């Protein structure tokens, strides 16, 4: 490394280095520390996710921050997911009907379709009319402790990611809020960085963060109505002209498909110009 020295100055105090924990150790530490507030821990692609009850949200954040083993003092991000029955926004579903097996798995609720299909008169959703009302539970919990009652039906899932500085230790915290009256305590007392993320979350989803210093709009104009990241909020461009949606899933002509298959089988590609040929010439 090049030597670029700096002029005089004070050397600053560093936070203590985190102990390296693997995913199982993080999960068991969370189970130990969160106690009754914890619903479950999941290890998914090496990432530990802890689902906590909403009342315990702030305490959970404080725990992962101050715990001497986890030391997750780096606030990465906070956001939400809006879980509804349909896996795809309206207008998208119709176009994908032939190609996607997944979209029909979750039953749709005809009472909830007022916002989208009411505006799109030409976009008739026949599948909606035939489906039956059912209990929609995207995140069923296996063991709910105490008196906590899990929200049913459409819900918001609040997600927060924190990690330990200069360490691979990181935790995803999640909690579920009902779609109506989504409200939770603010994290701004625990992490200063949560301020803007909660403002974004408020304007995009309408989730209210109690005790937040200033929940004004972050991105959108002050007089903007609606919460754009709600699944019921249709993209304006799609209302005017629905996206055909099947351009990418067009059938590949059989002769091209046969050629592609042959290429994949032999591991060669006609489009690639590998530089193996000129390797000898370059090295000298």
């Amino acid at each position: 490394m090049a030597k670029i020295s700096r002029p005089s100055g004070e050397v600053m105090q560093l936070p203590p280095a985190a102990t390296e924990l693997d995913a199982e150790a993080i999960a068991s530490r969370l189970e130990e520390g969160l106690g009754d507030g914890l619903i479950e821990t999941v290890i998914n692609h090496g990432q530990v996710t802890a689902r906590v009850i909403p009342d315990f949200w702030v305490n959970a954040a404080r725990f992962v921050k101050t715990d001497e083993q986890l030391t997750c003092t780096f606030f990465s991000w906070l956001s939400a997911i809006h879980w509804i029955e349909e896996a795809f926004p309206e207008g998208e579903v119709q176009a994908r009907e032939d190609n996607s097996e997944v979209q029909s798995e979750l039953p749709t609720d005809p009472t909830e379709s007022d916002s989208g299909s009411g505006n799109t008169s030409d976009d008739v959703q026949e599948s909606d009319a035939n489906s039956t009302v059912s209990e929609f539970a995207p995140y069923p919990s296996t063991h709910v402790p105490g008196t906590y009652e899990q929200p049913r039906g459409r819900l918001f899932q609040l997600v927060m990611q924190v990690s330990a500085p200069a360490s691979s230790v990181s935790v995803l915290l999640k909690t579920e809020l009902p779609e109506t009256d989504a409200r939770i305590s603010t994290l701004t007392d625990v992490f200063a960085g949560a301020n803007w993320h909660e403002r974004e979350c408020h304007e995009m989803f309408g989730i209210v963060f109690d005790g937040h210093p200033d929940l004004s709009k972050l991105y959108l104009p002050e007089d903007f109505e609606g919460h754009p990241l709600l699944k019921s909020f249709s993209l304006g461009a799609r209302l005017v002209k629905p996206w055909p949606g099947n351009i990418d899933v067009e059938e590949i002509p059989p002769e091209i498909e046969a050629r592609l298959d042959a290429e994949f089988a032999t591991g060669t590609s006609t489009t690639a110009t590998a530089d193996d040929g000129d390797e000898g010439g370059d090295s000298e």
Partner: protein
Amino acid sequence: MTTLGDLKDSVRAMAHAADARVSVDIQAGEMKLNIGPQHPATHGVLRLVVELDGEMVKSVKPVIGYMHRGYEKLLEVRSYPQATALINRVDWVSGFCNEIPFILGAEALMGIEPPPRATYLRTLLCELQRIASHLVFFSAYPLEVGAMTPMFHAFRERERVLDVLESVTGGRFHPNFNRVGGLFKDIPATFRKECSEAMEAVRKVCQDLEDLILGNEIFLERTVGIGVLPAEVALDYGVSGPNLRASGVAQDIRKISPYLAYDQVSFEVPIGENGDCFDRARMRLLETIESAYIVDQLLDSLPSGPVMAKVPKVIKIPEGEIYSKGENPRGEMGYYIVSRGGNNPYRVKIRSASFSNIACVEYLLLGVFVPDIIAILGSLDFVLGDVDR
């Protein structure tokens, strides 16, 4: 006859009198100052509403959103191959680095392993992009604190690096080169030669920049001890990348949870001591030099073979959730991808580095003088597209 010494004495006396007058007579009232959204030092459309007490900043309220394009909403109606065209434009100074975490996340959810050559090439192109991005910093930042010459040096070599990127990807700013499963195509035959020549040029320009800027007395006056960001505050706000490392935290995702081929190359992560503007600038110069070394190593060890894995004709991602992150030139860039099957994601949360980096100006700008606002903002190296998404 008045001598030079007399003249100096009288000037000193006048200056002293002026000092006394300032401290006694002038009542500096409070004042609200609006900086931006169109201001050259805000790198785009950041607006700051600053309350001043004389020359001193009493409070600051950053106003963002002028560049908000709603990418998180748009990504919900895009298929995965289409998504890279959008996420290229999140941070337009480092388009290629933006693609990587998203594509890696999609590949992890699908269980696809890209061929080693693709992984190495991705790493290489990432580092080229990092060099290009840091060279933009070294043209913009000195300009903001009053030095014009470095811009010409830095931009000349940045153009050269971009030429190399263009020869591979076809795009200077928005490569859109990654595919789920690998890369669009292989590198051209002239790549090795051009790339190593460009790296030589980068090393030379880094030396020039060090001589021009980091030893320059005016630059030191403007930056040393200005805008000190303590490590605890930086972590609290989620500041990442060179800005965090300047504050002494050795957090580099390339090291702490290696992705791509970063565990196959040796490089050092420069760490600062003071967390001031000078350190933040110094980190970027050192990182540029390290990146050039990484590129050299990757050029020597580039494996042969295909650049694309066998993937389905239609990219459908099974149900699942993943948070995939990478080290952008500006810090931690991550995507939280939620899939419920099908061609497009159910929800994508874009964690961009500049958003958190700029949030801490509320802390950084308190109690500084007006000219330092520009010096501090510039040292954070934010891109408004990355802030607003």
